[in-house]
């Protein structure tokens, strides 16, 4: 009897709270899911504007296209949360691409060799990025800018400036195969997204990442090994870039030293659109995934509508800034 009463009481209380809080609830809802709502609005808009947008084939097409940048952007999210930046991802894609491709000719080596080499090269480059900026006390902007230039040079040197083709079928599956009708890159994108989300939101590693970005000094005092953690974060970013590069190489069925130009900026844009703050300490993986999808939907929708390339660039720039503007206003309010 008593317990029933308390339950009933509790229910009325929570009910009351709900009712009184309705007005504050909308902005709260918006501040939590703002970018997601903007994304839905964009999807709705595109569906109205072009009849070819909203169908399963095209939606799968869009998600597949953003998988590559999306995975890179997840690593970049970790980096930006620590108040860092990674400018090397685009060039790193090219470097991983040519090295992996040269070991992926049919009948040369088993599949795991190019795969391990690919993610290995990516992680190693990330390790250098992290070590140089953490131990060398060099701003990440400069450290990764150096890597951006050097990795592109290495890719050109290694491949003699030429695409490396003739890749084995099992390798090509990574970029153009599908499982149960779903393109393989999408499966990897969602799987890696889930893992990275858990890593960032549910582990000590994630908490330390936020702590360093929020206040590095305080994090140090709290006993977090900041240098080691930063090195790990950049290594993770390099590793994820490696995964993306492998799939992209398989997609175009060649290792190319000219690949991935400006991808680092797309990845950073995806993270920032998704609510990651360049001042550190704020950001989520689902947000970044939505950010990548917003870019993808824009690209796809504008292509479908046959908007001129000049206008596409202007519109994309304007929409990206507007989305972030709306999102940041809500952050100020909150």
């Amino acid at each position: 009897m008593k317990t029933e009463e308390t339950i009933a009481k509790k229910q009325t209380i929570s009910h009351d709270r709900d009712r009184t809080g309705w007005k504050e609830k909308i902005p709260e809802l918006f501040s939590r899911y703002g970018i997601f709502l903007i994304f839905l609005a964009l999807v709705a808009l595109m569906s109205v504007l072009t009849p070819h947008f909203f169908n399963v084939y095209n939606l799968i097409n869009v998600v597949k296209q953003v998988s590559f940048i999306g995975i890179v952007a997840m690593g970049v999210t970790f980096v930006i949360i620590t108040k860092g930046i990674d400018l090397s991802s685009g060039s790193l894609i090219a470097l991983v691409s040519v090295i992996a491709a040269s070991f992926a000719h049919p009948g040369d080596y088993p599949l795991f060799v190019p795969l391990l080499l690919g993610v290995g090269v990516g992680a190693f480059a990330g390790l250098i990025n992290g070590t140089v900026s953490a131990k060398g006390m060099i701003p990440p902007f400069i450290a990764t800018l150096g890597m951006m230039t050097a990795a592109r040079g290495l890719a050109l040197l290694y491949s003699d400036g030429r695409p490396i083709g003739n890749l084995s079928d099992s390798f090509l599956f990574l970029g153009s195969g599908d499982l149960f009708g779903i393109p393989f890159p999408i499966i990897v994108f969602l799987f890696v997204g889930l893992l990275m989300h858990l890593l960032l939101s549910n582990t000590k590693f994630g908490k330390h990442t936020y702590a360093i970005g929020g206040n590095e000094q305080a994090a140090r005092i709290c006993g977090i090994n900041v240098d080691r953690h930063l090195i790990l974060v950049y290594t993770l970013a390099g590793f994820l870039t490696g995964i993306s590069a492998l799939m992209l190489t398989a997609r175009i069925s060649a290792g190319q030293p000219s690949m991935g130009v400006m991808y680092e900026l797309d990845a950073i844009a995806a993270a920032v659109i998704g609510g990651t703050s360049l001042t550190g300490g704020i950001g989520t993986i689902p947000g970044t995934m939505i950010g990548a999808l917003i870019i993808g939907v824009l690209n796809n929708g504008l292509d479908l509508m046959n908007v001129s390339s000049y206008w596409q660039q202007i519109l994309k720039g304007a929409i990206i800034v507007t989305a972030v503007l709306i999102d940041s206003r809500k952050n100020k309010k909150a």
Partner: protein
Amino acid sequence: MKARKAFAWFMISVLMLGLLSGCGNAADGKDDGKMVIGAAMPVFDDKWLSYMYDAMKKGAKGQKAELKMVDAKNDSSKQLEQVEKLVIQGVDAIVICPVDTSAVKPMVDAAKQADIPVVVVNRQPSADVLEKVDAYVGSESIKSGTMQMEKVAELLDGKGHVAIMTGELGHEAQVKRTKGNKDVIKKHPDMKVVRQGTAEYQRAEGIQLMENWIQSGDNMDAIVANNDEMAIGAIKALKSAGKLDDILVAGIDGTPDALEYVQSGALDVTVFQDPVGQGEKAIVTAVKLAKGEKLEDKMVWIPYELITKENVEKYVERWKGYDENKG
């Protein structure tokens, strides 16, 4: 502190040595009466251009001239400095492959003030600059576009929907090749451009753009790309959608990679631009001018060549020959 001072002195002495050796070279060039040709090149790490550079080096050896080749790393202002330096060194002729054709005028002026003959190679500057230079060696960008589209029009019997995939927006080749395409289409009342979009000369972007075009459900008979890499991208996307057999694909460049796609029948048309022809002719022309000889014609055209499945083997052999030359 001491170490730093020592290091500074070391650096200064290295720099001084560098300067001295620079002077030494310039003097050598004059002393033994050997002709010196300066070559201001846009960027060293470009595959196609590297074949042109090799041909220039070989050509200079053949002409018993010394070749001073410098790399502007795709930076116009750097290229201007380099040309000015070549002028100061007093070379006998300068070959310029401009980073940006609209920024080449001050370079030509600098050389002409010192009465040094100038040859522009590969990238054609505007008419007012052409008036000042002594020779232009290269192909006419717009012709690759017309040649490519004429073949496509022939294959389509003069009618059909065409989608044009363009390179980096504003790039000279993108503008002229696309214009060449459209000039031809205008001549065929039954042909029309249904789509135009940029894939930035890249294969990955070519795949993405083609995928989106396929999703649009538009009827397309031919994909005409500003370069081969984008054309290969379009082929990949068309192939996975099972539409490759119904749609013609055309590129420009005739890269070794693209030739494989021509051989397999996936790429229907591409256009070859001859790096070795341009490099050799540039040097021959520069040497002639340095000796004070007259040219028959200021414009030295190296024509484009059309590649289709019928003649592709010839070009495969040609690339092989170029690679062997590289050694």
